[in-house]
């Protein structure tokens, strides 16, 4: 139960951030960092209970009518993610406090950050599918807010919208997938899916579920060809990049795949599609990363590559591959979060993130240099860092003599080699060489800027050195949750002479070689890409531009802004609908007999016809409006004579008010005094009007000629007095029997009134402008 309450803690912090912002400007980040710190300790304390492949689901009813519960699933996988989210979150909040020091936007920034933290934590812990989806969408929305944080910059807004569109579409696909799983298998939560015999593999709609879920996971985790939004998201302030776009949010897709691996994995499509897309993403990411000169962009592309590697390993599905994926995921969060913060620190203190401008920073920032180097070594997979454990384990897992394993192993080696080189480009290169003339004189920043990355870097060594404890508490439970059975993880930091070790040596050699040749390679990749000239990023722009253009065209086609066209369309449609359906269903009414009317009834009919004639013949608009009113009054009198006083009353009032309002409006609108239509136009309009009249008349005749079903009116007559205590059936229907309709109607009346008021107001300033311009305001 406390675990359920813990989900609310980051949201509480999000509410508090703007409120406390006024009182504790300097201490805000430090005070608020206590919230994620508490969560971190809480999840850490829960971890020992979930050794091996133990898991526990806690649920309370949420939407019982829909079968949705508010539930968490605790096991090695979800707890490890929760620990990463809250632990790195704590450090990021501290880092953000220093990074945006003195910035008035800090409370807002922290509010968004905590919103995201709550969403991400809910995502990884959620058991119920619907709940998971809600948190999934919340991460997309909070990520949109954070990427577009510097909203006055065009590029920032574009990146935010791009991320939202791509991940939002993926979210819709995921929702469809989840609903399909719910209806096809009957399981509404992750733990229920796990409990199914043979998981989801036997479902007839397995393939559809697979594609839909993949649509969500691949967009969120930036797999090729959806990888383009992630580097663009680097428009966000660096703490966001470090937190969302390397350590946590982008791993949501990998989390989902890992979570579903026991239920959906081990099929041919799973073991083909995931490794292929993963490997392509890995290579695309690293090669595109080589081209970048901005520290953050280099890191962003290596993040894309790392996500590809994780998807590839998860898809490969052997015990070793899964253990490798789990180790790499943790290692990646540690070193990439650290390197991003280092890049932010360099940007903050040296005033540039461009590789070509930065050099010799080791003199001014020795501590940052040490941290960066530790992170880069872990990224490169050198012993005794946790990155080494991950790489050894993944090579063990991928080893095999079938061609499939060899291809993937080759991809992993090339990818890892490139990543090692990129790690050193960020973690080593800016610090070497002679001291540069930086935009700012580089010096060590305040402790909040380097404490966070330092802790992450030390964790990277710690996990490698104390690998027994690390495996026992984290790797084994997490890998077991992913595999669906207990997976032993024993890899240690001492190199043994084995195939995997030779492959590691090969990787390192490859990486060092690429590092030394980086400038030549960069130019080469640049040339190749310029020659190619087209990528998904450009494609995204074209799709969006195409959509906008199409929307414009369609809108202008239907909304020409000309009232006469609107009227013509509406009345043509009306006449067509009635006349076509009457003749199509052969329900054209028979002509009624000549009515036997009294003299006063004839008189009223005559008044109506004369009123109508006047409307048509009138040259003056006011005359036409008043004549229209006369005609309406005539109809009202008819109602009265036929014994419908309520209807008649309302008709009288409506006619009166429409004459008044029409007259007021008409006199104010600048219209030509006379009818501007030519005779043929008048003839066409008259024809349309005539058809409408014939149509409505025929419809009324047809209705009165069909036998009257009196059940409803008998019901009202019978119960109006006894149940609703009213003799006026019309009113009883309005306020009682069909009260909900009336409630909706009066709401519409009021909203329409507000809209009319708005329309009247729009023109007023223009009149005043004209008045002030011409200078006479009498």
């Amino acid at each position: 139960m406390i675990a359920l309450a813990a989900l609310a803690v980051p949201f509480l912090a999000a509410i508090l951030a703007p409120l406390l912002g006024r009182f504790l400007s300097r201490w805000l980040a430090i005070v608020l960092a206590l919230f994620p710190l508490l969560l971190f300790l809480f999840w850490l304390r829960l971890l020992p209970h979930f050794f091996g492949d133990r898991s526990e689901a806690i649920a309370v009813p949420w939407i019982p009518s829909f079968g949705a519960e508010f539930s968490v699933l605790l096991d090695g996988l979800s707890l490890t993610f929760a620990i990463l989210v809250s632990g790195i979150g704590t450090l990021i909040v501290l880092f953000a406090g220093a990074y945006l020091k003195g910035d008035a936007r800090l409370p807002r920034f922290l509010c968004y950050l905590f919103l995201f933290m709550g969403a991400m934590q809910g995502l990884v812990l959620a058991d119920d599918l619907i709940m998971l989806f809600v948190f999934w969408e919340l991460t997309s929305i909070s990520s949109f807010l954070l990427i577009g944080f510097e909203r006055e910059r065009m590029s920032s807004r574009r990146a935010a919208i791009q991320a939202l569109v791509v991940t939002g579409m993926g979210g819709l696909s995921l929702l469809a997938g989840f609903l399909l799983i719910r209806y096809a298998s009957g399981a509404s939560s992750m733990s229920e899916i796990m409990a199914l015999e043979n998981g989801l593999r036997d479902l007839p709609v397995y393939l559809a579920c697979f594609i839909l879920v993949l649509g969500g996971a691949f967009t969120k985790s930036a797999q090729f060809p959806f990888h383009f939004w992630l580097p663009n998201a680097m428009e966000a302030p660096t703490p966001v990049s470090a937190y969302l776009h390397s350590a946590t949010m982008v791993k949501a897709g990998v989390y989902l795949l890992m979570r579903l691996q026991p239920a959906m994995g081990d099929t041919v499509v799973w073991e083909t599609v995931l490794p292929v897309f993963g490997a392509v993403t890995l290579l695309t990411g690293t090669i595109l990363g080589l081209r970048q000169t901005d520290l953050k962009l280099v890191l962003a592309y290596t993040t894309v590559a790392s996500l590809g590697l994780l998807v590839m390993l998860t898809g490969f599905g052997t015990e070793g591959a899964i253990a490798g994926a789990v180790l790499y995921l943790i290692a990646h969060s540690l070193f990439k979060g650290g390197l991003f913060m280092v890049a932010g620190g360099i940007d903050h203190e040296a005033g540039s993130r461009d590789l070509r401008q930065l050099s010799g920073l080791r003199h001014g920032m020795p501590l940052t240099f040490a941290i960066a180097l530790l992170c880069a070594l872990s990224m490169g997979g050198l012993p005794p860092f946790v990155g080494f454990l991950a790489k050894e384990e993944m090579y063990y897992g991928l080893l095999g003599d079938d061609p499939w394993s060899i291809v993937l192993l080759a991809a992993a080696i090339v990818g890892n080699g490139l990543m090692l080189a990129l790690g050193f480009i960020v973690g080593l290169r800016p610090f070497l060489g002679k001291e540069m003339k930086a935009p700012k004189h580089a010096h060590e920043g305040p402790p909040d800027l380097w404490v966070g990355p330092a802790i992450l870097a030390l964790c990277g060594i710690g996990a490698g050195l104390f690998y027994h404890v690390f495996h026992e508490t984290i790797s084994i439970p997490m890998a077991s949750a992913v595999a669906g059975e207990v997976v032993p993880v024993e890899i240690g930091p001492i190199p043994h002479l084995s195939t995997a070790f030779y492959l590691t040596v090969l990787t390192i050699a490859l990486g060092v070689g690429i590092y030394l040749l980086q400038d030549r390679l960069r130019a080469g990749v640049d040339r190749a890409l310029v020659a190619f000239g087209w990528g998904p990023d450009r494609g995204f722009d074209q799709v969006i531009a195409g959509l906008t253009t199409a929307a414009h065209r369609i809108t202008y086609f239907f909304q020409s802004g000309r009232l006469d066209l609107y009227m013509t369309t509406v009345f043509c449609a009306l006449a067509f609908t009635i006349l076509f359906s009457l003749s199509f269903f052969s329900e054209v009414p028979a002509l009624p007999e000549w009515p036997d009317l009294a003299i006063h009834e004839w008189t009223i009919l005559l008044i109506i016809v004369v009123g109508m004639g006047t409307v048509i013949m009138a040259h003056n608009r006011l005359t036409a409006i008043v004549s229209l009113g006369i005609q309406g009054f005539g109809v009202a009198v008819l109602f009265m004579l036929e014994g419908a006083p309520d209807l008649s009353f309302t008709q009288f009032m409506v006619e009166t008010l429409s004459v008044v309002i029409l007259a007021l409006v008409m006199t104010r609108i600048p219209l030509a005094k006379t009818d501007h239509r030519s005779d043929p136009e008048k003839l066409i309009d008259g024809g349309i009007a005539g058809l409408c009249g014939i149509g409505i008349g025929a419809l009324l005749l047809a209705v009165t000629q069909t036998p009257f079903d009196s059940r409803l009116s008998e019901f009202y007559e019978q119960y109006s007095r006894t149940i609703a205590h009213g003799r006026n059936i019309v009113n009883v229907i309005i306020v009682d029997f069909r009260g909900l309709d009336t409630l909706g109607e009066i709401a519409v009346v009021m909203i329409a009134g507000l809209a009319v008021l708005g329309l009247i107001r729009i023109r007023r300033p223009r009149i005043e402008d004209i008045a002030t311009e011409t200078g006479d305001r009498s």
Partner: protein
Amino acid sequence: MRTVIFRTVAPFLTALMIIFSIFILLRGHNEPGGGFIGGLIAASANAVYGIACGVSPVRRSLRFHPMTIAGAGLFIATLAGLASIFAKAGFLTGLWTTVHLFGQSIDLSTPLFFDIGVYLVVLGTFSSIGLALEEREVE
């Protein structure tokens, strides 16, 4: 339009129309009438007053912006519907009670309050449109 006769008669006419509209509203449950038609009559009363004496006296006599009145009407109608929830009945179920006051017995019901809500929405919306248009004419 603003003849002396019209301006002299208009306030009385308006007052009469308003009283008549309330009469129509209250008798609606058993005789022809009701909130909608009552609201229309009251709105016409305001329109007459506005045409005769200008918009500002109407706004002054209404005290609130007509849209506020309409909003209050919608609120009352919703509350009248919600009242039945406390009686463990569905939304908008009619509740009836009889009050004895000065020897008279008066039937009170949630549909009555609902109808008052309808009256206020119609009165408020149409008055505010009418007054806004009349205001333009003055300019």
